[in-house]
């Protein structure tokens, strides 16, 4: 079922797949409150975050690497809780993973969360794009 997913992400996906529609919304709201801001060292290089132009909400993405393991940080406006929630899922689900683990994640993994009944295709594309940009950063680090 959750083949190819890092364990933490697989667990989150499983939680969602067991939820009713209304519970899914509540769970996403919970996650939206858990998004961790970037620590100073993630901002130290002074570079602009990777942007995700495909998402209707302005999203910035940063990665911090330590000993070959990655942590992702997202800039998402406060008034976009859906994207904050999704970003928090990515942040927690990919915490301290390797670039190889990230590159193995199937692009359509969110289908297992059954979000199609809640979100428009356009929204789902935005979410897919966030993963695509996460992978881009991971690939850049993997290739050194």
């Amino acid at each position, binding site marked *: 079922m959750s083949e190819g997913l890092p364990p933490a992400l697989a667990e989150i996906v499983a939680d969602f797949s067991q939820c009713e529609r209304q519970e899914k919304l509540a769970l996403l709201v919970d996650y939206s409150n858990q998004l961790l801001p970037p620590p100073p060292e993630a901002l130290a290089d002074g570079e602009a975050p990777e942007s995700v132009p495909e998402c*209707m909400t302005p999203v910035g993405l940063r990665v911090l690497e330590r000993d070959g393991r990655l942590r992702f940080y997202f800039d998402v406006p406060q*008034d976009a*809780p*859906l994207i904050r929630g999704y970003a928090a899922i990515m942040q927690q689900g990919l915490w301290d993973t390797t670039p190889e683990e990230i590159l193995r994640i199937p692009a359509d993994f969110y289908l297992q969360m059954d979000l199609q009944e*809640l979100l428009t295709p356009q*929204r789902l594309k935005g979410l*897919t794009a966030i993963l695509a940009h996460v992978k881009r950063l991971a690939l850049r680090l993997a290739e050194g």
Partner: protein
Amino acid sequence: MNDEYAHPEALVETQWVAEHLNDPDVRLVESNEDPLLYDTGHIPGAVKVDWFTTLQHPLRRDFLEKDQFEDLCRRLGIRNDTTVVFYGDKNNWFACYAFWLFAYYGHQNLKIMNGGRAKWVAEGRPLTQEVPTYPPTDYTAKEPDPSIRAFREDVFRQMEQGLPLVDVRSPQEYSGELIHMPNYPQEGAQRGGHIPGAVNIPWAQAVNPETSTFKPPAELRQLYEQYGITPDKEVIAYCRIGERSSLTWFVLRYLLGYPNVKNYDGSWTEWGNLVNAPIEK
């Protein structure tokens, strides 16, 4: 030229809403782009509608049918004589879509809260996570009002007669240069560009970016008239799926009083996929 909106009764200020929170004749309806925003906190007493999960038809590409719309109103405690006040995020973009749908089914007392959610929050007014319930009503909808909705046949006719079409998307969508990323599906349309003859007046230009409130009448009039969008002609507005253009429809119809304005909700995701439909870039 007098500087008043043509139908000032279609707009209320946040203060008015604050004074009517417990008014049984008023129902506040929050309609957002972000489907979680209501759940994080909303105006006390407000009910939620979501463009995708509440207002769209569960099967075909369409919005609710008449009986489904009646069910919705009954569930939300809306009577036929209830004053329904819409507000939402992103400059009331989806609030205007909900307004348009209610107008289509003939509801009489409809209002938009000027400035939307952003203004209410900026003024430090209260939000709650408590979801209200209201006694169900026996709401009955009127027959759909075809004068405010354009189908593709109407758009072809409009184009062939050289009548005004307003494309309210961003300049990049209008010109057909899409944001591109390899292997990533675009916009939901096979082709980019715009309907021949359409002028590009991005929807958000009708709103003050700092306050999210509508621009004053004279500025709005100038915004549209400079492109030849005048009240003497029938106007059709469109965007990608018909939500942004419902804000333009609201502005033209209610704030400027244009008598004949239609929203083409098929919009670019229909036109840009239609075999044989002419496109301009």
